[in-house]
């Protein structure tokens, strides 16, 4: 059990009569890249909101990084990172200032912030724009910066909600390199996407259809099970 970062059992969220997430049960191992796939409106974002402690579940239980998502939110939040669909950096702050702010919010010491900032800027090779306002930095770079900021405090797990939507293929490739690096560092990555081709970058994949988790397994297992040549086909078969 120790190496499981997420354990969810019958996790459910209802909004009135509408069941957005319907009894999903799964777990995620440490260091894994876990792909959370599904069409728009399949319930991915709602599930992520529950797992990150900003939405209470209607029923079922889940533990993330060892903490109950409904009862131990504050401890939970210290141990996770999050990057949303909506852009999360402050446009009117510089790159460095954003790092400093989020570092401070996660309770890093001044010294830690300075080292982390140095590392991050060097790794992304951004020293020439470290004092540039985020609003003036191209979108592709912003995504990479947002991701790096999300794992600044070295969380046990990072949730990425459609991190690559609206980015060109080359940047997407580079972005995934960052995800691999993080996973090698021992950070579990939980990523949602509706690009089916990105599924092949993940260790394991789950497929959400209308609030239910229809399939879970490695790319290989799924392709075999559904006798498909790629994820698109798997998706079409499941959605039907």
């Amino acid at each position, binding site marked *: 059990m120790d190496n499981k970062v997420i354990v969810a059992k019958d996790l459910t969220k209802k909004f009135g009569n509408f069941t957005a997430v319907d009894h999903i049960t799964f777990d995620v191992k440490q260091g894994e890249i876990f792909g959370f796939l599904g069409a728009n409106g399949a319930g991915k974002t709602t599930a992520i*909101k529950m797992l*990150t*402690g*900003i*939405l*209470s579940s209607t029923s079922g239980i889940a533990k993330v990084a060892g903490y109950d998502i409904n009862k131990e939110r*504050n*401890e939970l*939040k*210290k141990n*996770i990172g*999050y*990057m*949303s669909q*909506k*852009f*999360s*950096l*402050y*446009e*009117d*702050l510089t790159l460095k*200032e954003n790092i*400093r*702010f*989020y*570092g*401070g*919010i*996660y*309770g890093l010491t001044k010294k830690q912030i300075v080292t982390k900032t140095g590392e991050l800027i060097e790794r992304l090779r951004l020293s020439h724009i470290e004092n540039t*306002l985020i609003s003036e930095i191209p979108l592709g770079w912003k995504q990479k910066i947002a991701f790096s900021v999300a794992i600044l405090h070295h969380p046990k797990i990072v*949730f990425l909600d459609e991190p690559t939507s609206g980015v060109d293929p080359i940047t997407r490739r580079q972005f995934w390199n960052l995800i691999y690096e993080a996973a090698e560092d021992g950070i579990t990555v939980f990523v949602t996407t509706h690009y089916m081709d990105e599924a092949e970058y993940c260790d394991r994949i789950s497929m959400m259809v209308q609030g239910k988790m229809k399939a879970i397994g490695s790319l290989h297992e799924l392709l075999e099970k559904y006798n498909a040549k790629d994820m698109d086909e798997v998706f079409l078969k499941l959605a039907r």
Partner: protein
Amino acid sequence: MQRIIYIVQKEFKQIFRNRMMKPMLFIMPFVQLAVLSYTADFTVKDIRIYVQDQDMSPLSAKLTSKIKASDNFTLKDVSYTYDEGFNKIQDNEIDVILSIPEHFSRNLNANRKTELFITADAINSTKAGISINYLQNIIHDFQIEEAQSKGLIEIKPGINTIKRDWYNPGLDYKFFMVPGILVLLVTMLALFLSGMNIVREKEVGTIEQLNVTPIRKYQFIIGKLLPFLIIGVFEFTVGLAVALLWFKVPFLGSVGVIYMFTIVYLILVLGIGMFISTITDTQQQALFLAWFFSVIFILMSGLFTPIESMPQWAQDLTLLNPIRYYVEVIRLVMLKGSSFASIKVNFLVITLSAIIINMLAIRNYKKTA
């Protein structure tokens, strides 16, 4: 604590980076204070008068020239007919008509009764009342002077009233208005800054990111509140300096009391802003609400028109208006030198409200989606 400092730093950077913000924060309020303080004066000057003189005597001419010589009146025309004057009122060219009847001179010399007639454009009721009052005084003085010069009466008033104007013997409106306008400006700024703040993070989307961080609700609200509190106190201080040095408004009371009250008051206003920010979805909605409350707070503060004049229900409503309390306090302390004991009720009301509204704002700010 450390987290709060990081939020404060961030807020300051964002405020000072906004191109429009600096002039709006550091020039506009003081320009308005310096300029607008001169506008708020109820003294009625330049009353445009038309004299209908049916007597056409040296005495009626004397009265007319006495009116003309007065500071309050501008004599527009003298003529025999009334209609001409009436048309001029209709066309907004004059404010009052004084009609001097036939035989005015004869009656006055014979110590007989005679009646003058005033017609006033009463759309502006205050001005009409004051104009009539001024005219009556001039006429009263005129008849006493005339009577005296003929030795007709001895002047004994019956009751001799002496008026003393305390706290502001020169009846300088600015003493009253400058501290009040300062309060309004500080309030509007505070309400605006705080009201637009959280909702802006909602609209831009950064709030989502903050929601998944381990930051506590109270840390968040305090972190947001502090920078504005500091700016508010700063604005107040500069404005106070303008009031004291430029307008020479006296300051009889204790500076400590004023600052203590100002800080609590600002926390209340900022709390109201935060509260608005938590219940709205867009900056536009937040602004409309903030604006709505500002206008009400301003016009019902007792600063421009007296609270005592309002109907009872409106007077009761002003009890919910924070500006009312602040205007009262700043006047009491600055102009009358009242001590803390005299403002303790106001202090209590503002403190309690500040606590309540901020708790509501904290409660209302959901870290959940």
